[in-house]
């Protein structure tokens, strides 16, 4: 496949075959070498064949192969002519990240990290099918969760009203339909609120190591040496079931609308079709569940830190900086070829990165642009960036969402079988606790691309600017 160099960080794939638009890849030469090793570029071209796609089939710097859409893929669909695809959202609907700040300084608590992590591990349920953070919900309660989103959690005492304002979409999609969610999805979600899950999901304590944009950092409430918390989780079994249900329904309807697919996992229907509307309503309900989940996880984390250090909420000063979805499809208005267009933006392993002035950005950040969260692996770094006008012009306001894997899980386990990852990380002053040794091996830092490279490329391409770099100091994983 031929890639045309636009500049050192942007590459274009000219349309061929059934492609309706070109592909555009944000990567350095170094990243591109890795990207070429899997089928992600082929997936970018497959997405470019979907009806109603406008502009480009986009690939963020952390792109790697997924199923159907690549992870790190962005596609904006015209609302009148375009399609919606559950594969463009993923099984873990509204998998996302939130970043919270504290008043704690690393130097003052560095001897207590082990105690904090142990308390977090005991307080926050993690691992496969984990449950028990809050009592099993009745169907009526779960129905409320699916409609109200974060507001439900705050009403129940998990967090503060300000958290809602600092969550993408204010923590609740309007138009979520709990009736569009299957009985089995309800069953799978009933006891999973306030659980991290397994795989690459985590709760992480980090310390701010370097600040690149002091004025913006100040607006976000960030200072050097500060302890912050990343929370990465999603809609758990409820979301997986919604995706599975609708892949079946939409898969059966695709041919009815005369849509030719290069990959069955791209099953899709017109946005305005009855099936499309129903999926979007169910996806919104699952997304609301995920926002409640992360809201509760944040409250559990606050409780764990306070108990470990025997401090009050005031001293801890635990406040949300921002919560962002990175597996989602959203109706948005963008400028395209000089005109305002309404599109459904699919972000599959990509994060929103709106620049200054957009109404969707919380008032508090509207003058500077929204916070963009870029967590890395558990041994190196994570970044806080800020959205830009260029992202609005080029990527429908989207940016990278993480580091992206480079080693398969089985390769990581094979190569690490004689290693003690928790011990190795402890040597670097990073305390890690996980449900299983296997998770630690699968998630070893070398299994991921270097997030520093992803952050630099993102900035050089102009789709987000680095505000600060953080280093992990304590992690719990499933």
């Amino acid at each position, binding site marked *: 496949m031929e890639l045309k160099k636009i500049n050192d960080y942007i590459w274009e794939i000219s349309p061929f075959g059934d492609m309706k638009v070109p592909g555009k890849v944000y990567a350095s030469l170094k990243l591109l070498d890795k990207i070429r090793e*899997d089928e992600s570029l082929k997936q970018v071209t497959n997405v470019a064949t979907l009806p109603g796609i406008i502009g480009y089939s986009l690939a963020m710097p952390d792109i*790697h*192969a*997924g*199923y*159907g859409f690549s*992870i790190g893929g962005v596609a904006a669909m015209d609302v009148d002519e375009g399609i919606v695809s559950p594969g463009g959202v*993923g*099984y*873990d609907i509204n998998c996302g990240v939130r970043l919270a700040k504290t008043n704690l300084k690393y130097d003052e608590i560095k001897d207590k990290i082990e105690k904090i992590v142990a308390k977090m591990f005991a307080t926050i349920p993690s*691992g*496969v*099918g984990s449950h028990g953070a809050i009592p099993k919900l009745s169907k009526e309660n779960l129905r409320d969760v699916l409609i109200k989103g974060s507001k439900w959690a705050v009403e129940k005492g998990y967090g503060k009203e300000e958290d809602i304002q600092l969550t993408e979409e204010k923590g609740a999609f309007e138009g979520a339909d709990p009736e569009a969610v299957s009985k*089995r999805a309800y*069953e*799978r979600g009933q006891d999973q609120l306030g659980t991290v*899950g*397994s*795989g690459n999901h985590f709760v992480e304590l980090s310390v701010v190591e370097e600040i690149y944009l002091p004025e913006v950092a100040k607006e976000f409430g960030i200072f050097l040496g500060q302890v912050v918390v990343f929370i990465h989780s999603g809609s758990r*079994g409820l979301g*997986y*079931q919604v*995706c*599975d249900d609708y*892949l*079946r329904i939409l*898969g059966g309807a695709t041919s009815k609308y005369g849509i030719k697919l290069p*990959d*069955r*996992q791209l*099953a899709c229907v017109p946005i305005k079709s009855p099936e499309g509307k129903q999926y979007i309503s169910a996806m919104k309900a699952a997304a609301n569940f995920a926002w409640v989940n992360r809201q509760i996880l944040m409250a559990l984390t606050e409780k764990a830190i306070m108990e470990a250090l025997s401090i009050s909420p005031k001293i801890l000063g635990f406040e949300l900086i921002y919560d962002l979805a990175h597996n989602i499809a959203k109706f948005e208005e963008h400028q395209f070829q000089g005109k305002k267009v309404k599109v459904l933006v699919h972000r599959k392993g990509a994060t929103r990165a709106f620049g200054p002035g957009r109404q969707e950005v919380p008032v508090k950040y509207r003058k500077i642009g929204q916070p963009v969260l870029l967590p890395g692996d558990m041994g190196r770094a994570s970044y806080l960036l800020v959205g830009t006008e260029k992202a609005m012009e080029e990527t429908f306001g989207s940016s990278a969402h993480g580091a992206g*894997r*480079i*080693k*398969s*899980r*089985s*390769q990581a386990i094979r190569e690490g079988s004689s290693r003690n990852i928790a011990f190795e990380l402890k040597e670097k002053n990073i305390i890690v606790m996980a*449900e*299983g040794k*296997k*998770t630690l091996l*699968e998630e070893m830092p070398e299994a991921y691309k270097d997030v520093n490279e992803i952050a630099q490329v993102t900035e050089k391409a102009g789709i987000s600017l680095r505000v600060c770099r953080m280093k992990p100091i304590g992690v719990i994983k*499933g």
Partner: protein
Amino acid sequence: MQSFKVLDHTADLKMEFSGENMEELLNASVEGLSIYLFEKTGEKIERTYKRKFDKKNEIDFFIGFLNEILYLMQSKKILPKLVLIKDDNVIIKGEKTEKKPLVEIKAATFHNAKIEREGNILKAVITFDL
């Protein structure tokens, strides 16, 4: 003769299953997923489940079955021991387990999914979302 193996896949899980017929293929997948998730297979028959799957084609049927098995294993904590195909139904027999799965598999996907016959052997390659 049924068997399974894990193939390399950067982000997710790719597995190959084989058997002489569809029933053996289903049993190979149950064995492979049990070992991947629990490091053991079912030994007792305490529960029996009867399910019908889309029979449009082999891929739909097989992926429908895999997603049901994943649900039974991860949500219902059932460790299957034996799978039988009877008329239009698939009968799944297994035991209740208290063991937690080691990892979470979200779903079996259609991405590059294939079932092919090689001589007397039916082979399936499936990518699972982790």
